[in-house]
């Protein structure tokens, strides 16, 4: 049974999503319990799967029984399974949060809303597990189509943002597909392990280098790397409050994970360090993103836009960690990716609660309610500790290992970029706290009643997770160091 877990993890949300339009034809209200049930099952299976894979080693699941170069395979190693536990837990929390914040005027389309969320989660699972380049593209597209629809679901200005996201996202997917076709032309196969085997003989081919660059630009658009980030702030700030946590915490991070798979598992650590200097490019773009994203966040007045730019700068920090070409940097990058997924979810839960419960959208207004809203301010303190990277939180340990990796690689520019972006992150959170603790105006009416229980759960659990990831960083990092390193690193 345990060898079916990777396939089950993908099939549970998919099955729930496709059965929903039929099952909920008469009973619209069933859509939410079905979605919650499916994701709870997924959380259970993902934890079982992780423990099984730590114990028994990676699983390569061949769909329909066709062996790997011919058939489609799922690669479930420790890295993928660990990310999947985070993905399913955050998906479940985001779904709990989506209940009280779901757009009110959806009517019968509420069924489609939950179908889209489940499809998004199942396709993200597909990206994490995909064992060949083309399936990565397919699931990238399914995830993107679901996100376009979810961004635009409540109409109005969101439609414009969704359309812009659609145009840029499609461009990214097309460039990625172009890169894949170059690889296919050069190597004659799409399976990642198969390409990795054939690639050492093909390094003189310009198609491989060109294809790699196309894939980098394509996935760069998907993960909102700085020169290509223009779609993200609009899409995430105009998206309904119920869907922005899931988009911000998962979609860009999973695209980044796809890129990690390609450079370290397909191209191989030896090649990117000695023959094709792609790591240098990734590192420079990462440093730029880390600093520019934080500067842009500092200039924002809208709460959600500020957090969206914060996410862009953190993508840069993860990329710096990945691009150091040593085990310390790699592990730091992956650990920071996990932390950033949790922190982004927490930030957008916070923004959603501020908007839906207190009617606050800007930094200025946030200061007015901040003092009277203990849940909001309390969790903001913990999240900001994590975002800045102060010791008891997971953000600190992630940045610590990334900086150690950069020092090991004698990459002082990257260290400087991380420190600068940390200072700028501190600056925009100080801006927020300055509003809260200096404002003495009286409270508004909305403050008198308690926020709904779901809001408290989501914020409390993600804030606790930020702390717990810091306190238990040692077992996670040693697990990554011993079992999740790419070959040759």
């Amino acid at each position, binding site marked *: 049974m345990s060898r*079916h877990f990777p*396939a089950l993890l993908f*099939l549970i949300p*998919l*099955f729930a999503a*496709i*059965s*929903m*339009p*039929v099952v909920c*034809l008469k009973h619209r209200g069933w859509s939410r319990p079905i979605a919650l049930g499916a994701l709870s099952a997924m959380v259970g299976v993902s934890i079982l799967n992780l423990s099984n894979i730590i114990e028994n080693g990676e699983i390569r*699941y*061949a*769909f*329909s*029984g066709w062996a790997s170069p011919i058939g489609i395979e799922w690669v479930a190693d420790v890295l993928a399974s660990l990310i999947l536990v985070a993905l399913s837990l955050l998906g479940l929390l985001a779904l709990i949060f989506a209940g009280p914040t779901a757009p009110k005027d959806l*009517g*019968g*389309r509420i*069924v489609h809303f939950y179908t889209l969320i489940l499809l998004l989660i199942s396709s993200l699972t597909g990206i994490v597990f995909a064992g060949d380049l083309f399936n990565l593209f397919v699931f990238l597209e399914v995830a993107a189509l679901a996100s376009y629809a979810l961004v635009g679901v409540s109409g109005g200005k969101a439609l414009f943002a969704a359309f812009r996201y659609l145009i840029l996202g499609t461009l990214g997917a097309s460039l990625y597909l172009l890169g894949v076709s170059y690889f296919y032309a050069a190597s004659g196969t799409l399976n990642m392990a198969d390409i990795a085997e054939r690639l050492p003989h093909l390094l003189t081919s310009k198609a491989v280098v060109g294809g790699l660059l196309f894939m980098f630009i394509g996935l760069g658009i998907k993960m909102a790397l700085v020169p290509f980030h223009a779609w993200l702030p609009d899409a995430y700030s105009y998206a309904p409050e119920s869907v922005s946590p899931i988009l911000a915490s998962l979609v860009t991070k999973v695209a980044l994970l796809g890129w990690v798979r390609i450079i370290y598992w397909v191209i191989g650590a030896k090649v990117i360090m000695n023959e094709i200097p792609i790591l240098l490019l990734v590192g420079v773009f990462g440093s730029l993103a880390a600093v520019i994203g934080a500067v842009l966040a500092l200039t924002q007045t809208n709460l959600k836009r500020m957090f969206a730019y914060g996410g862009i700068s953190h993508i840069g920090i993860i990329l710096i960690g990945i691009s150091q070409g040593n085990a310390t940097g790699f592990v730091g990058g992956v650990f920071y990716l996990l932390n950033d997924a949790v922190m982004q979810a927490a930030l957008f839960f916070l923004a959603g609660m501020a908007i839906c419960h207190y009617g606050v959208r800007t930094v200025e207004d946030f200061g007015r309610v901040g003092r009277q809203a203990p849940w909001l301010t309390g969790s903001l303190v913990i999240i900001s500790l994590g975002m800045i990277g102060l010791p008891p939180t997971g953000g600190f340990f992630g940045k610590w290992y990334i900086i150690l990796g950069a020092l090991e690689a004698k990459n002082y520019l990257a260290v400087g970029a991380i420190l600068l972006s940390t200072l700028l992150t501190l600056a925009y959170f100080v801006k927020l706290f300055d509003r809260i603790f200096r404002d003495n105006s009286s409270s508004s009416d909305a403050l008198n009643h308690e926020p709904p229980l779901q809001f408290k759960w989501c914020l409390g659990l993600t804030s606790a997770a930020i702390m717990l990831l810091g306190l238990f960083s040692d077992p996670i990092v040693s697990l990554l160091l011993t079992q999740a390193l790419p070959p040759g690193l």
Partner: protein
Amino acid sequence: MIQPHDSIIVKSLGRFLIPVIQIFGLYVLFFGQYGPGGGFVGGVILGTSIILAVLTFGHNASRSQIAKKLLHGDGVGMLIYAGVGGLCMIGGGEFLNYAHLEIPGLEVASRRSLGIVLTQIGVALDVAVTAISIVFSLSAEEIIEDSLNG
């Protein structure tokens, strides 16, 4: 709103052509095991026949009511596909490994054949419904709204 076409030629030809197209679609669908064809192409042809019916007889005609009902079937096709795959998993094989479709009295070869036919029927249903719903949503938004809210 799609009005019925007022030309007698279009209507009579439609009455004659629609069943022919449907039979051809079914042929393509089931022939997919042995040669070119299969669920996707067969589904497109079946969907086209219903689109033709809606265009000639209008979307309030009795035939078009079937099409509107079919709009809810977009999940059914996928369910058949995933269901067959799931049965293979229950039988002890990988997802969609038809050899493990546990049906007593069938050899492995005929199990594979049956499995492919069933999944292709699911694919055909899904593609047909998608084609119809694209035409409906391009022509009249309120049809889908009605069918969802009603």
